[in-house]
């Protein structure tokens, strides 16, 4: 026995003490992880609970479905909610083709040249760029060059710029995660490169792509800085018409309303500000929920 270790083997007592210490260390680490987990959960809960408690008194159907009254002292936030939804839809329409096919390009066509490496590094850097920078960029480019004043289209374009890098990167990684064996099968059946992408790669990567798309758009919808200078209007009584003119006009929206409303805190009652806050949070949560459902349903079918 113990021929490899020989008589260097420690005494039974020493071994027992050592084993006890190892178990204790393991337990201690577990406790540490649990406390960190609880801490994170508490932090998130604190935010949610605060907003729900403070925002709930203002929340009712009328608050969501009517406009402000009495110079914002009363009434609801429908124009802002509608504006946020419009901004989100517009943003989604822009990022869907550009972001997804940008990701396809990076994953399948770009290769590994030095230029592409540089481009990819830039996309990663852009994904971490503060959103206010996009706001100023949007002001300089989309507002001053296209509409000369804040507008829905300038806001959508700016939010799209903000959301694009993350969508490109998530699309690229979703595509790269498609098993090579599927791609080989497509190639061996004589599919063209585009057919392999359309019939094999995109369907398999779809859950990941949609998740990135939705989460990133939802995140953009909650950002105030990008639309502060590009889309926002504090409050407008002008009736919204659903036509092409709509895109050229400024649009009231939730983040802007919050930012301005807080600055002018004395005008808008606190109750309405918290109600707006809760509405924005619910809107973003709702979008994230959609992404979670899409992913969960796709996971069930994904057997590889």
């Amino acid at each position, binding site marked *: 026995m113990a021929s490899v270790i020989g008589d260097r083997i420690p005494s039974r007592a020493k071994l027992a003490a050592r084993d006890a210490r190892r178990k204790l260390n393991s337990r201690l680490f577990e406790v540490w992880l649990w406390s960190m987990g609880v801490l994170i959960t508490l932090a998130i809960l604190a935010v949610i609970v605060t907003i729900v408690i403070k925002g709930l008194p203002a929340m009712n159907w009328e608050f969501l479905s009517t406009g402000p009254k009495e110079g914002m002292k009363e009434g609801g936030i429908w124009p802002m909610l509608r504006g946020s939804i419009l901004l989100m839809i517009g943003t989604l329409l822009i990022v869907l083709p550009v972001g997804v096919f940008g990701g396809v390009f990076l994953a399948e066509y770009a290769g590994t040249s030095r230029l592409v490496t540089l481009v990819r590094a830039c996309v990663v850097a852009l994904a971490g760029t503060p959103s206010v920078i996009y706001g100023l960029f949007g002001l300089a480019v989309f507002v001053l060059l296209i509409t000369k004043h804040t507008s829905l289209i300038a806001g959508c374009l700016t939010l799209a710029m903000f959301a694009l890098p993350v969508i490109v990167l998530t699309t690229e990684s979703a595509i790269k995660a498609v*098993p090579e*064996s*599927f791609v*080989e*099968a*497509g*190639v*061996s*059946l*004589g*599919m*063209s490169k585009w*057919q392999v992408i359309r*019939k*094999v790669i995109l*369907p*398999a990567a779809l859950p990941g792509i949609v998740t990135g798309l939705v989460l990133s758009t939802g995140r953009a919808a909650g950002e105030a800085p990008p639309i502060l200078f590009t889309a926002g209007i504090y409050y407008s009584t002008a009736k919204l018409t659903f036509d092409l003119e709509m895109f050229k006009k400024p649009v009231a929206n939730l983040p802007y309303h919050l930012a301005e409303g807080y600055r002018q805190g004395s005008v808008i009652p606190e109750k309405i500000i918290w109600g707006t806050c809760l509405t924005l949070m619910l809107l973003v949560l709702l979008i994230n929920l959609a992404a979670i459902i899409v992913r969960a349903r796709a996971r069930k*079918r*994904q*057997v*590889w």
Partner: protein
Amino acid sequence: MVSEIASRENIVVEAKDVDFYYGKNQALKGVTIQIIRNKVTCLIGPSGCGKSTFLRSLNRMNDRIAGARHTGLIEIDGENIYSRKTDLMQLRRKVGMVFQKPNPFPTTVYENIAMAPRIHYGFGERELNEIVETALQKAALWDEVKDDYKRKHALALSGGQQQRLCIARTLAINPEIILMDEPCSALDPISTYKIEELIKELSGDYTLIVVTHNMHQAGRISSHTAFFNLGELVEYGTTESIFQRPAKRETEDYVSGRFG
């Protein structure tokens, strides 16, 4: 090397002095071989001997590997498949492939088979229905899936069924040659037996080129066997002669199980 070859028409694949490199690494050295139409030819040899590389150069799957290049000539039906005029979609319509690990698409059994003929030939629903059924029958999978192949998810099939589905999928584009890269190595013995029976049945209508680790399998299914070692084609002939009267010591050592 194969003295039994009767006429030029019987040769479907002809390789002349093929060298193959992955970057600086040479995988094939001067491979010259003539493969006979509508027979089963097995490529055997130890890991890393170049048999898979050779197989994958026949439908140009190696094109996908960065830094892969070759010299020499590979002809199929007398046409250089590495010529500038070669259309890869046409080549792969003619030369189908079955992989080591079954790799059906994550969709229905039906769609797995219908996809390629729809793409290549533009068939409609009615023709595709017939093609899918025939392909499943030819691949000996029909009886097991006939009730629900339009709904059943391909990945819900067993490994052996998946591999027969992959065979059906390649049959559906009407290839002349079917390349198989160790098609049974991920399967249990019963599934392996079924695939081997299927291979024997398909020979006569198709040229099958099968890479295998398993010498006994080569003995059971093939009419001709090529033994590769260290990137060279050591010996090639009828399976009987390779196993019973190998001309080279290396071959004899391998087929008698002394190495590999």
